[in-house]
């Protein structure tokens, strides 16, 4: 059974109220959901909190899921909306800042640098990239994350953002141009 069929089968069971199926769905997709949210907002603790909200939303919205649709597309739509709502909430409470994972002490998955100097340089690199991604408009941010990091196709991104494929290409082009300017000096 290919992954898409497995997700659809699990969602059918979730619709029927099967919580073990829901747990399996979480375990299958927790990494990509948390990673996507973390890349967008930079705060590791908040990323897990928001990821939980995403999965709970998936559970409560299971009745609206149609098996003909790709589950990950539907899931990423909820992720995109959750991130966008979080940015809106933070803009209303401007005192809260978007802290990077390194500031909160959360260690990244791949901490290869043993040298303190190299670790500091890497830390700054991570912070610069995170800030540049975080400063992108919502749709550009989601498009670049799904394309660059999650390997989603233009068609899948178009479904998530409810726009056309040419619009996705335009979003990605503008995002790249902005990131080139923001990250000049690092490449």
């Amino acid at each position, binding site marked *: 059974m290919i992954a898409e069929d497995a997700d659809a089968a699990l969602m059918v069971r979730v619709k029927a109220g099967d919580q073990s199926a829901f747990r399996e769905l*979480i375990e299958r997709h*927790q*990494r990509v959901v948390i990673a996507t949210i973390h890349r967008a907002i930079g705060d590791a603790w908040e990323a*897990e909190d928001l*990821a939980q909200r995403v*999965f709970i939303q998936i559970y409560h919205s299971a009745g609206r899921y149609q098996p003909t649709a790709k589950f990950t597309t539907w899931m990423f739509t909820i992720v995109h909306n959750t991130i966008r709502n979080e940015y809106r909430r933070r803009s209303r409470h401007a005192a809260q800042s978007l802290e990077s*994972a390194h500031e909160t002490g959360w260690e990244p*998955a791949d901490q290869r640098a043993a040298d303190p100097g190299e670790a500091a340089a890497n830390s700054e690199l991570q912070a610069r990239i995170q800030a540049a991604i975080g400063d992108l408009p919502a749709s550009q941010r989601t498009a670049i994350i799904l394309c660059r990091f999650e390997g989603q196709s233009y068609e899948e991104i178009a479904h998530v953002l409810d726009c056309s494929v040419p619009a996705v290409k335009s979003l990605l082009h503008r995002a*790249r141009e902005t990131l080139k300017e923001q990250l000049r000096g690092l*490449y």
Partner: protein
Amino acid sequence: MNQPSQRSSDDDKVWELLGRHQSIEPSVGFADRTMRRLTAEPPKPAWSWLPSLRWAGVGLAALAVVVTLGIGQHARDTRRAELYVQTHQADYLDDFDVIAALDQLAGENQL
């Protein structure tokens, strides 16, 4: 100005640079905590849909206020117009009285 080849090279470099961005792995027990959070949610009561009517009620109340104010304003404008007509009509009738008197005078002066 950057040549196309330079721009393409910069695009590739930025794309490669993004690939160096590190994300995080789920913490241990994430699925367990999510399930606990789900089961800890209080069940939604049968009337849980009522709060969604709250803003509908607010909107209706605002509409009622606007309509009431609009009706009141219209009534005031109508009354003001009526008074204006009455006032100017009185002047108009006064003019007719003067003209009628002048006609009488004119008639009396006729030989």
